């Protein structure tokens, strides 16, 4: 069954290959190929998700549930082999013995545990001896005494494999990604209509879809890392899509390099996993119920485990634009708006959160604390900056950073379900918001909110759908954002009860919820209501075409309904419960024991707090930007320091420029100088010295050695001159002389010879 997802992952890749190879021929057909591919993926993932959900214990009891259960869950070997047979049909060589570790004794464990399909092929085979040795042993058992058990399996990973692992989180993420991506593809066909590199855009989108989907389905950290970099690459290409603009290429570079810094952390995490656990595989590192594999945990030092956790989290920090590395995301808005929606709001930046959720059991309490604090700082800092942002997309970007901070933080305090739920809902409404802003930009030709205003009449569909998004993100009741934010606040409250020493950081989500509502409504009011501030822009403005508005409507529905409790009475689980089945045991044990239950109890309080904060923010926004009771410029004058800090984004860029970029460049120049002057200088100096030495010796040679030789030579020459008269130059005379000499010799011999 995993084949569905494998195919759904590979289809965009195939589309990418086709587009890159034949892009110049296909021209506009590129868009159809890309959209068709991702649409097909969406179709497959929907099918897969329905199928997956259909036999989930406790949700529904589909016919043949037990059979499925047996096939997939029980008997590790059976599950593995069933999968392999699928893979074999797909023509992939499977690596047995590598993924079977995690499926023991599943049936006895409650319904919480995810049913995971797994399959993998070897990607890089470094050691093959293992198999051979065991095979030899199997054939010659007598050798066992000689070889000894410790030789049987050398410590460490011999194979890097790529594969898939489907559990409900994967299925859900997959569904979300393909759905949003499909909408955005359709939207892009309208939005990018006049672009010169139309085809290439879709090729990049396809590549991104592939990378993102492969990231989501992957069954080991190594593959995650590879896809991690690949999505970063696509992000780079798409941010730098308008590469003629210097700012775009700079933003692309910034995004990529910042991500790489995070990736180094990820690599460090990988290194620790590699050297302490000797495996990257999820199913080997984690037990099926979602704890760290005790066998491996016994091998690992807590310090290194923390390092691993923080390392992986640093990767997430880079990708999800968390506090120290968040600077790239606002700059990334240089890319086309659909890209911002897809990559920099809904999917790629959420991958960090996904990874934290995925590797949740790995984190030690210390690491989780770091996560919490980073998330908390991020959500607040970004929210404050968003207040003063005037660029519509940048405001949304900071909002994204802030919302990601929510997710990270709540994951750090054990709110696994809340974090993921917010991830899903946020993906929908943030994609919606970005697309709406894109529609506005498309219609007006500007991104600056001060130039907009009063656009509601001109583009009602956009305004309404965007209002849905704003309501969602602000957490108004009955919207999806309400449920997810409510879950977060409840988790925070529950955590705060048991860990009062972290109260400070726990206050931030509540405050920021208000700020969020404030800046989102500010954005909406500045854009759509009031009087037009720029006549030219206003006259020019127009509603976008159907290609763009239909996705908006679809997304608005999704955003509104995503977390709806009964889901319109359909026989499918609610978002929360669906995610809840995948919750790892680690999120509900140890320091988090009972936290989930307590959070449930606190839902009521939390919803009051959340909606209260949101209401406050909203009211403030209404007062300032709609009704005009308060003047924003007045506030600026009142708090100039604060305003400077915020408008300069807390001076992060400057700090980095002076602390990192310039020193690095200076160090580079120094190294180059060192190379040229010190190393090469020493070399050239020694060469010079050799030359001087040779010159000296040359003089010695000429004077003394040659002098003696010349003297000897001249002496011989004199002798030769006196002897030369013997040579008569008469050739035949020489012959006669030789003959005479021969005769004389023989005669002499005859005379002397006595036998």
């Amino acid at each position: 069954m995993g084949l569905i997802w494998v195919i759904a992952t590979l289809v965009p890749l195939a589309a990418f290959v086709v587009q890159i190879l034949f892009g110049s021929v296909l021209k506009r057909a590129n868009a159809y190929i890309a959209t068709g591919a991702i649409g097909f993926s969406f179709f497959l993932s929907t099918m897969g998700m329905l199928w997956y959900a259909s036999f989930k214990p406790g949700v529904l009891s589909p016919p043949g549930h037990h059979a499925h259960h047996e096939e997939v869950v029980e008997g590790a070997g059976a599950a593995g082999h069933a999968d392999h047979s699928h893979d074999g049909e797909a023509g992939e060589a499977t690596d047995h013995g590598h993924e079977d570790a995690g499926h023991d004794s599943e049936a006895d464990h409650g319904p919480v545990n995810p049913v995971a399909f797994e399959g993998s092929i070897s990607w890089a085979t470094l050691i093959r001896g293992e198999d051979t040795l065991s095979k030899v042993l199997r054939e010659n058992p007598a050798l066992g005494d000689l070889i000894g058990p410790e030789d049987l399996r050398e410590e460490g990973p011999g194979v890097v494999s790529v594969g898939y692992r489907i559990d409900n989180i994967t299925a859900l993420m997959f569904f979300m990604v393909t759905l949003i991506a499909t909408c955005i593809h359709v939207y892009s066909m309208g939005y990018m209509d006049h672009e010169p590199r139309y085809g290439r855009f879709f090729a990049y989108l396809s590549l991104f879809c592939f990378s993102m989907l492969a990231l989501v389905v992957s069954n080991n950290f190594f593959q995650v890392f590879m896809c991690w970099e690949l999505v970063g690459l696509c992000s780079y290409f798409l941010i730098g899509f308008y590469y003629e603009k210097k700012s775009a290429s700079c933003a692309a570079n910034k995004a990529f390099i910042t991500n790489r810094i995070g990736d180094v952390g990820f690599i460090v995490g990988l290194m620790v996993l590699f050297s302490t656990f000797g495996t990257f595989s999820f199913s080997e590192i984690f037990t099926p119920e979602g704890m760290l594999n005790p066998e491996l945990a016994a091998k690992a030092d807590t310090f290194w485990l923390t390092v691993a956790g923080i390392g992986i989290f640093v990767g997430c920090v880079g990708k999800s634009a968390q506090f120290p590395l968040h600077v790239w995301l606002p700059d990334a808005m240089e890319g086309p708006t659909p890209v911002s929606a897809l990559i920099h709001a809904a999917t790629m930046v959420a991958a960090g959160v996904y990874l934290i959720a995925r590797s949740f059991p790995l984190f030690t309490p210390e690491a989780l604390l770091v996560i919490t604090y980073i998330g908390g700082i991020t959500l607040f800092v970004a929210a404050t900056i968003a207040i003063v942002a005037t660029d519509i997309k940048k405001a949304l970007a900071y909002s994204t950073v802030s919302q990601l901070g929510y997710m990270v933080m709540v994951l750090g305090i054990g709110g696994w379900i809340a974090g993921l739920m917010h991830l899903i809902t946020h993906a929908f409404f943030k994609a919606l918001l970005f697309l709406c802003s894109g529609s506005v930009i498309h219609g007006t030709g500007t991104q600056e909110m001060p130039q907009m205003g009063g656009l509601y009449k001109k583009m009602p569909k956009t305004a309404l759908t965007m209002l849905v998004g704003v309501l969602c993100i602000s957490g108004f009741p009955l919207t999806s954002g309400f449920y997810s934010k409510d879950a977060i606040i409840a988790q925070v409250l529950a955590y705060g009860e048991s860990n009062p020493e972290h109260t400070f950081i726990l206050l931030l989500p509540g405050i920021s919820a208000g700020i969020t509502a404030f800046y989102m409504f500010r954005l909406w009011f500045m854009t759509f209501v009031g009087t037009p501030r720029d006549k030219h822009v206003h006259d020019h403005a127009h509603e976008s075409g159907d290609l763009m508005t239909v996705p908006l409507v679809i997304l608005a529905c999704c955003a509104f309904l995503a977390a709806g409790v009964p889901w319109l009475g359909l026989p499918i689980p609610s978002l929360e419960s669906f995610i809840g089945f995948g919750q790892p045991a680690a999120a509900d044990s140890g320091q988090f024991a009972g936290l989930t239950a307590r959070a449930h109890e606190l839902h009521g309080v939390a919803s009051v707090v959340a909606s209260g904060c949101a209401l406050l923010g909203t009211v403030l926004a209404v007062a300032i930007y709609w009704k005009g009771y308060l003047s924003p410029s007045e506030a600026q004058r009142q708090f100039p320091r604060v305003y400077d800090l915020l408008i300069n984004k807390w001076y992060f860029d400057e700090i980095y420029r002076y602390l990192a970029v310039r020193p690095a460049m200076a160090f580079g120049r120094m190294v180059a100088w060192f190379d040229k002057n010190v190393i090469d200088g020493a070399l050239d100096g020694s060469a010079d010295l050799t030359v001087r030495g040779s010159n000296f010796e040359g003089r010695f040679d000429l004077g003394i050695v040659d002098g003696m030789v010349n003297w000897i030579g001249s002496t011989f020459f004199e002798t030769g001159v006196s002897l030369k008269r013997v040579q008569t130059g008469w050739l035949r005379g020489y012959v006669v002389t030789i003959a005479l000499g021969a005769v004389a010799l023989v005669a002499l011999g005859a005379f002397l010879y006595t036998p």
Partner: protein
Amino acid sequence: MIDTVLLTLILFLPALGAAMLALPFFDSDEKSKHWMLINTIATFGLTLLLLGDFLELTNEQGFVPPLSERALATADGQNAPNDLVVRVPWISSSAFNIEYYLGVDGISLSLIVLTGLISVLGAAASFSVKKFTRGYCILFLLLETGMMGVFLSLDFFLFYIFWEVMLLPMYFLIGIWGGPRREYAAIKFFLYTLFGGVLMLIAMLGFYFNSDPNTFDIIRLQQIGQTTGPDAPFSPFFQRVMFVLLFIGFAIKLPAVPFHTWLPDAHVEAPTPISMILAGVLLKMGGYGLIRIAYPICPDGAYFFAVPVAVIGVVSIIYGAFAAMAQQDFKKLVAYSSVSHMGYVTLGIAVLPILSPVYYTWGMAGAMFQMIAHGISSAGMFFLVGVIYERAHHRDLNRFGGLMNIMPVYGALSIVIFFAGMGLPGLCGFPGEIFTVLAGFKFGAAFGIIAAFGVILTAGYILWTVQRVYLGSNKQYEGTPDITTWETLTVLPLVFLSILLGVYPDLLLGWMAPDVEVLVRDLTDYGRSLTDVVTAAK
């Protein structure tokens, strides 16, 4: 029998071609160039044939028998008909014991195939050579023979000869067809390498006179070197001294900081195809020498000096990357990036004291993979730099810009190659880098982490370069013709390979890694026995 012919032909076909170039028939430049191309293609074809033969050696366990096994079987006259080992007594088998002794395993074969490929592409890239074409072609082909010889020889003496044989054509190729400072660069290159060669010579003689019976047989020397116990012919002290000599000799070629300064000069001055060869193949000889000679023959030295060597590797990575960041000259930047990339090779090889064959295989196989990948990507980079140099006649990074719009195909190909150099997953640079870094961490956390920071720097300078050269817009080079079909064909195999190897490294590792594993197991066994001795003594 066929293997004898095949190996000999691979070795001497280019030289034969060079000799044929002396015939009066090749009176025009075109003929010479075509002949050179045909010759290199034929050699490359033969290397592929060799690869096929190699894969056919697979026994019932699914492995190609290790080289040492095959070589010793050949020595006993027990060899299979096509075991890809050639042993013919050469110089007075009784007195000097020097043999015409060739053989391949996965390690050398991968480099041989790479050499064949890069030579073909280099020959194709040489079509723009105008000066003394015939001489160029002759030297080029001789160079190929030298390179092939280095990778094929299993006799140290033969190895040394080819090492030096390769040197002279290179000297002339840089010194005659190079840029404005070509004499300086050529002499620098020559002296550096010769210096290393002399150290190697000393080590070679040391091995020879300390082995009993005296031998130049590398396989035999490996066995001698890996003998442990109090009466081992190569004492630990001897091994350490020899290791230092060999290491410096090979590190110069690699090149590792601080022996690297010949490389930027040589690259900047060398003509494009020679830069390709230089980066694509010549640097690999250093790594190959370490893997084939220095480490297996002097494992004790390798253990003793593991930390310094790893430090050199890490320093090379960081130092090269920083130096690259500061360059204005496109070619120099690529040259320093080579220093940085080859640092991973040093690091990967150095991590011997892990003592776990599995983990050390990551380092060693990573180093091998990195060599191949670097051979592909850096050759491509130099070629692409050459392409733009031919059009713009300068290499100043700050004066380019906007080439992506002006030359779209060229831009696209460049992006692939440069990103492959950057070590992006899905392209060939990634597996080698990540494997070595992982193994480096296992050896010492600091090594791994610092080396990992090289990733950022690499991304920094490459992206910055890409931005300065390809992105943006530029009126100055408006109307520059895009890359020609011929040039595209030249670089396309590299692009294709960098993608292929990045997407599925098993294509290479599948037949290379088993031999790496054999080597690694020998070395770690040696190391374990050492530690056993130490623990026993305690």
